[in-house]
């Protein structure tokens, strides 16, 4: 029982990790609290779903979703930089506009993909012929799990996709353009005095951020078999939760470490959520409440731990001084 629920949570977590990486780019790298995410996540799902229903190959449909997310994010960036609208408001405006746009894209408030091809179904078809599932399932059942996953293909392919995107992100943030992008979030005045066009960098940064969010939405839609207009509600909080949990648990020493932490955070969040929902009196409608509690815990716990460590250190120091003084007096 345990194994299969954690497995499912891991599977979903690593898809949502792409969304969390997007949120990391806007909130942390650009220092831009971008609320477009709630809308662009659905845009990704909507564009992918409607394309697939209309016969576009799933991979291409997913790419369209990525591009659509980029455009949505860029518009938020344009509102902020060219329209001089404050960051929060730019994001909120874009989010609300996307709500209607997403319904336009889908033509109704949801699209089912149950009988359509998806990236995951295509990969599963190929994967099944390799016989790796049997090997892996034998291994975990030897470890005592009885309820086994139907396929490992989703997890494996998503680990590959997410890691590739992680490494591309790490690389990008070290390039000349990437450094300027980071400085735009860190000290805008300074990087402008080094001939960087911070407006364009903000627009591109938000574009990439929301492209990743939409990509995640497109994959979640194909994973779950539907896109629904409500699937983005609270997405920004989940993204932030993943970033905060990841940073608290796995550290932020370098960029590469932090992006890995964010992915880890997204997975841990899903697992904690699934386990919390197993508690008898909690219901699936409590999801948002649990999310809030998880984020609060992730925010407060590190502070408590540091404070405790500090007080222990000071106590030790005082004790040492007291002893030293005793020796001097004697």
């Amino acid at each position, binding site marked *: 029982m345990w194994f299969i629920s954690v497995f499912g949570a891991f599977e979903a977590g690593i898809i949502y990790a792409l969304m969390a990486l997007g949120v990391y780019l806007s909130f942390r790298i650009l220092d831009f609290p971008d609320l477009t995410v709630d809308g662009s996540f659905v845009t990704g799902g909507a564009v992918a779903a409607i394309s697939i229903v209309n016969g576009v190959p799933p991979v291409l449909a997913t790419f369209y979703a990525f591009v659509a997310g980029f455009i949505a994010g860029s518009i938020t960036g344009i509102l902020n930089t060219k329209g001089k609208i404050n960051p929060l408001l730019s994001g909120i405006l874009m989010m609300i506009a996307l709500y209607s746009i997403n319904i336009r894209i889908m033509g109704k408030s949801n699209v089912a993909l149950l009988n359509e091809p998806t990236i995951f179904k295509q990969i599963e078809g190929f994967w099944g012929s390799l016989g790796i599932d049997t090997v892996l399932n034998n291994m975990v059942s030897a470890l005592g799990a009885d309820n086994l996953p139907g396929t490992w293909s989703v997890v494996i392919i998503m680990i590959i996709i997410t890691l590739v995107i992680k490494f591309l992100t790490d690389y990008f943030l070290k390039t000349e353009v990437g450094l300027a992008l*980071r400085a735009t979030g860190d*000290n805008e005045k300074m990087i*402008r005095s080094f001939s960087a066009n911070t407006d364009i960098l903000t627009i591109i940064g938000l574009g990439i951020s929301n492209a990743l969010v939409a990509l995640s939405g497109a994959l979640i839609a194909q994973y779950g078999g539907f896109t629904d207009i409500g699937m983005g509600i609270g997405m920004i909080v989940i993204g932030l939760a993943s970033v905060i949990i990841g940073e608290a648990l796995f550290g932020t020493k370098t960029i590469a470490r932090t992006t890995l932490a964010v992915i880890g955070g997204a997975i841990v969040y899903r697992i904690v959520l699934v386990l919390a929902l197993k508690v008898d009196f909690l219901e699936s409608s409590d999801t948002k409440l649990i999310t809030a509690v998880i984020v609060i815990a992730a925010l407060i716990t590190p502070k408590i731990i540091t404070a405790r460590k500090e007080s222990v250190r000071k106590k030790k120091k005082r004790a040492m001084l007291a002893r030293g003084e005793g020796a001097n007096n004697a």
Partner: protein
Amino acid sequence: MLNMKDISVTFNEGTLDEKKALQNVNLHLEKGDFVTVIGSNGAGKSTLMNMISGSLKPDIGSVSINNKDVTILPEYKRSRYIGRVFQDPMAGTAPTMTIEENLAMAYARNKKRTLKIGVSKKRKATFKNHLETLHLGLENRLNAKVGLLSGGERQALSLLMATFTEPNILLLDEHTAALDPSRAELITNLTGEVVNQFGLTTLMVTHNMQQALDLGNRLIMMDKGQIILEVSGEEKKSLTIEKLLQEFQRIRGQQMDSDRAVLG
């Protein structure tokens, strides 16, 4: 090299707060000129610097660099030609990024930014060499976050970042003002060294008269949005603080007389 013609700027025009920050300012710099700028608070020194860097635009007048009119060129495009160090040590560097990353960003000032790695092996060696000239041991801390450096260290790094790509014009606005006396002296000396080494055309604002006399081949004094005194060459070399103050009194006095005359 730099030509400012009839620059005027008024802030909050038509309100009670109206402030004529610059009035018909003309300034011409030859290549290699090192001009120190003095004047009381609110004289318009920083505004003058902002006209050159493009972070503010003049109401009237034009600015050209290398005979190219840059009056309406946005700040980020102009900064290809201009290196700047600000008064606030926090202002000139990105605190969450490392020393080498900051240098890499400065290195790209006059180039097109690409999708190549910013801190390449080869550049790392160059950065190390440049950092050694500061004699602060920063060359051994390439991977330290700049936010961890002291104000003096950050200002030295800012100075290096502003100069090592040899900008056409270097703007220093009270860049030693936030430092303790010994650090201020260190940065002042470094400034003299790098400006000499690269033969940079420099404009330096300072409230330290001695510094204004020691450094550079020209000196200008500003007051109430105008350049009221210009000294250069041998005349500057023989200048002392007393003479400068006397001169200031004389001009100020004259002005007060003429004000009185106008007011009747």
